[in-house]
């Protein structure tokens, strides 16, 4: 009997292996599997880390002694800009995204993330965006205005070369990747946890990643908008940030730091999640205060959005406003402190098993707490003024970012290395790596606090001898190279362990979370069968769970249909709701990202027809991507043996696609709100704001377009509801009619724009109005195109009475389009009239 069971389990594993395998050879580029892509994210991030580190060492060489000319001022400017850019955008965020992509499905008992093609697309956007930015460095035309690209230093007047364009376009490309990952992780965590894994029993790491993903969704759009506006200003002369035209350079700072400060926590929270995951494992007991930690993570996620102005205390903001942000900046230390105390209490009350990952966690605690304390100092406005733009700020930032992110990431590396390689790393080399890194880091940056307090400004390529900075700078530089030695030691350790590391036993750290229930290294499908859980610590409470899962004794232990599947569950309780069928290997993500790379490079070269061609190509590819869904032959065609107990998600009314649409629209809404913020900010604060004497936009046609859009939306809603109720009679015709009315609405709106007497290159007022109108036009066009697609799919039998799901997925987009239309009418046209502006 046992032999027969083993044979059946073996057959199941082989079958799943065939269904989930990546394509061989170059076909691996079409992989959509989260394990493969998570690893690619992390390896690519590590390479960018080495490049950023190399730039740092060159800068420290330059600053080691006074009055050196090893690298000139121009190159130094490029280096510090690229160092910050590479480390923040191409290393810190992506490597943590990669870690989350790799781990989350395994921790929640899923076989993959919920939108695998989106993961692949995100990776390629990241890779191509990063390469485009690096290309500028290789060509010697890298951006040189600092990693936060303040205007007017980065504007066409003071940065006429292409460096700023490389930054703006490349970073926006990379941000598409981050947004895709944010949507992906949010929906995956909420909707694909294994049966019984409620929110309260979710691994604590998933809470951190959920909050991080939502922070990406809300935090990145302000910078995306700012980058688009600045690139338009540089390319076409629309004066969003130019005082002469009524713009304001401070607007850039607001939009940048609306992203930039949450970004610090986007980076810190996953790393803190690693700490909250590892400490209980090495303490041999559950995390103390799970609820308190969840509370503090959620609170941090929100409060961190209310701190952005503390980066701008010196720009002339009223004292009262500064006080608001100062208090909020101090307040955010409270939830962080809750976590620190929870970690200490867990270690205190547990039986600590000392190991290399824990040593990195200890390093994190020391360094990050120091960084947090200098953060509270910087939250005090008078002190902030005193040390603004000095090395003190540089030191603080590195204590927070390296302490708060890199130390936990290296702990994670040593902790999960056996998971991805199946081998253990060397303890001796690992300890050498830690101590060299720890000593080198503190030597470099502790001393930098002193050079800062003694007045050394940041971003100067050299300094005079005898100012009291000489010895400190030399020691800082020596420390930088010692730290580099630590990194080299870690690289050697990791490289050697693949050859010489001893075989890792199953669950080598006696961890409690499900990722250790996979084989080491994991199979592409993660688990043969998906368990029903009732515990927050499944592997502690059910030590034989990995064996029973591998034997196929739990849910979804079938592969006869040849589909990739995972379980869809309720967001709160983890009750099974549907079976989610997942796409297999696909070239579309790579091709879509390549098309966007064509757009990016064409814009850099100012080759606008080529850029338009790239946009059209990308749109065609994305529509094809959308086409291969639902009951399409390449997805899950209707069959006689449809599952009885749980429906496939494409046959349901609330599948993950709907959640993905809603989360994407939240991000889109954040972008729109950023535009509204820009409008009101310029209106109230820009010193040269001017309003034209005559109203530029005709109200009546605009209102007519809005009325038509409202009718279209109502008709669409009715068609979708009727399909849900099983009445698909004439559905295709109705969708074509809706599309036709949508085209008329779009035409009216386009006429409003054509007829508008805007002078966008002369007035920031008109430039913002132009962006608003284009935003509405793009959304209306997209809604119509997607409805046409639905109408076509009705014709093919992909959408109908039994299959109303896709109509429901599209419905929020129509609602959003209608909502922003009327909000725009109120905020951009009505309100200014009430203020007497026009």
């Amino acid at each position, binding site marked *: 009997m046992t032999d027969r069971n083993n044979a059946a389990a073996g057959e199941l594993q082989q079958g799943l292996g065939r269904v989930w395998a990546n394509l061989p050879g170059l076909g691996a580029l079409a992989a959509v599997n989260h394990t493969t892509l998570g690893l690619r994210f992390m390896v690519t991030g590590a390479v960018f880390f080495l490049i950023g580190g190399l730039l740092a060492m060159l800068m420290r060489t330059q600053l080691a002694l006074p009055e050196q000319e090893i690298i000139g001022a121009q190159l130094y400017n490029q280096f510090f800009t690229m160092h910050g850019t590479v480390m923040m955008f191409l290393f810190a965020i992506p490597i943590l995204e990669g870690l989350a992509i790799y781990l989350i499905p395994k921790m929640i008992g899923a076989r993959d993330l919920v939108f695998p093609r989106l993961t692949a697309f995100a990776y390629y956007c990241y890779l191509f965006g990063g390469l485009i930015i690096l290309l500028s460095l290789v060509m010697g035309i890298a951006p040189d205005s600092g990693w936060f690209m303040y205007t007017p230093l980065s504007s066409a007047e003071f940065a006429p070369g292409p460096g700023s364009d490389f930054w703006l376009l490349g970073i926006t490309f990379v941000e598409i990747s981050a947004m895709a990952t944010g949507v992906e992780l949010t929906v995956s965590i909420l909707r694909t946890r294994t049966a019984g894994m409620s929110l309260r029993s979710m691994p604590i790491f998933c809470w951190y990643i959920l909050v991080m993903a939502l922070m990406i969704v809300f935090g990145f759009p302000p910078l995306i908008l700012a980058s688009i506006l600045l690139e338009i200003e540089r390319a076409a002369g629309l004066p969003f940030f130019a005082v002469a035209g009524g713009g304001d350079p401070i607007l850039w700072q607001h939009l940048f730091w609306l992203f930039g400060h949450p970004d610090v926590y986007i980076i810190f929270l996953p790393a803190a999640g690693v700490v909250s995951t590892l400490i209980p494992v090495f303490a041999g007991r559950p995390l103390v205060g799970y609820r308190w930690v969840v509370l503090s993570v*959620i609170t941090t996620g*929100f409060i961190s959005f*209310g701190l952005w102005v503390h980066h701008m205390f010196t720009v002339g903001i009223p*004292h009262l406003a500064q006080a608001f942000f100062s208090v909020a900046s101090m307040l955010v230390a409270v939830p962080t402190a809750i976590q620190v105390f929870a970690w200490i209490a867990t270690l205190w009350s547990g039986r600590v098993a000392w190991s290399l990952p824990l040593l990195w966690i200890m390093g994190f605690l020391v360094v990050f707490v120091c960084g947090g304390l200098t953060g509270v100092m910087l939250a005090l406005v008078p002190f902030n003024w005193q040390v603004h733009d000095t090395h003190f700020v540089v030191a603080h930032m590195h204590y927070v970012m390296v302490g708060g992110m890199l130390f936990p990431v290296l702990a994670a590396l040593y902790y999960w290395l056996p998971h991805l390689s199946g081998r253990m790393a060397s303890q001796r080399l690992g300890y050498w790596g830690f101590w060299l890194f720890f000593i080198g880091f503190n030597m470099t940056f502790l001393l930098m606090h002193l050079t800062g307090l003694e007045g050394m400004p940041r971003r100067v390529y050299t300094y005079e001898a005898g100012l009291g900075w000489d010895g400190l700078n030399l020691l800082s530089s020596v420390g930088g190279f010692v730290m580099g030695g630590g990194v080299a030691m870690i690289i050697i350790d990791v490289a050697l362990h693949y050859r010489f590391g001893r075989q890792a036993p199953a669950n080598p750290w006696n961890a409690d979370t499900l990722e250790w229930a996979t084989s080491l290294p994991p199979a592409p499908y993660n688990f043969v069968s998906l368990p029903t859980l009732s515990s927050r610590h499944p592997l502690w409470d059910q030590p034989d769970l990995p064996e029973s899962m591998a034997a196929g004794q739990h849910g979804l232990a079938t592969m006869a249909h040849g589909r990739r599947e995972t379980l869809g569950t309720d967001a709160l309780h983890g009750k099974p709701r549907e079976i989610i069928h997942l796409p297999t290997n696909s070239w579309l993500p790579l091709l879509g990202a390549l098309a966007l790379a064509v757009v990016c490079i064409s814009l850099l070269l100012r080759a606008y027809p080529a850029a338009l061609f790239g946009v059209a190509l990308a749109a065609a590819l994305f529509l094809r991507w959308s086409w291969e869904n639902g009951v399409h032959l390449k997805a899950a065609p209707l069959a006689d043996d449809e599952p009885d107990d749980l429906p496939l998600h494409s046959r349901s009314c609330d599948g993950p696609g709907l959640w993905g649409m809603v989360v994407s629209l939240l991000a889109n809404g954040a972008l729109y709100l950023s535009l509204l913020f820009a409008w009101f900010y310029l209106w109230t604060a820009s010193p040269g704001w001017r309003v034209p004497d005559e109203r530029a936009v005709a109200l009546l046609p605009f209102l007519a377009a809005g009325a038509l859009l409202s009718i279209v939306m109502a008709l669409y809603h009715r068609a979708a509801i009727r399909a849900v109720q099983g009445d698909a009679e004439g559905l295709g015709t109705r969708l074509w009619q809706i599309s036709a009315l949508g085209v008329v609405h779009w035409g009216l709106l386009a006429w409003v724009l054509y007829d508008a007497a805007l002078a966008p290159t002369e007035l920031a007022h008109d430039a913002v109005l132009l962006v608003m109108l284009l935003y509405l036009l793009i959304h209306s066009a997209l809604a119509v195109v997607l409805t046409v697609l639905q109408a076509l799919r009705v014709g093919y039998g992909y959408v109908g009475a039994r299959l109303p799901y896709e109509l429901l997925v599209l419905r929020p987009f129509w609602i959003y389009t209608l909502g922003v239309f009327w909000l725009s009418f109120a905020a951009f046209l009505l309100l200014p009239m009430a203020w007497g502006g026009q």
Partner: protein
Amino acid sequence: MHLVLGLIIWAVWFVVLYGGLSVGCALAPPDVALGSLNWLNAVLLILTLGCTALLLYLGACCWQGRASADGDLQRQFIVHVGAAVHLLSAAAVLLVGLPVFALPPCI
């Protein structure tokens, strides 16, 4: 929703506070000589106290939901964390809003 409602209210209040200050200063800046005793600070203070009271009320409602969550661990979790989120949000509103007592708004 209970897990984030308090903080959403905090976020909206924060935007209104900062935006209201900017708009107030742009449209009708109070006399500097009045210090913190002016119409704008008074409006911001009322807004702050009202928002704090609302959050405390919602937190209390959430806490009272304990009774109906008896035996349901998931609901208990939501009730406890939700009540704490409301309480923390109320504290955040009060603390961030306190400077309106001391500082003039537009300089």
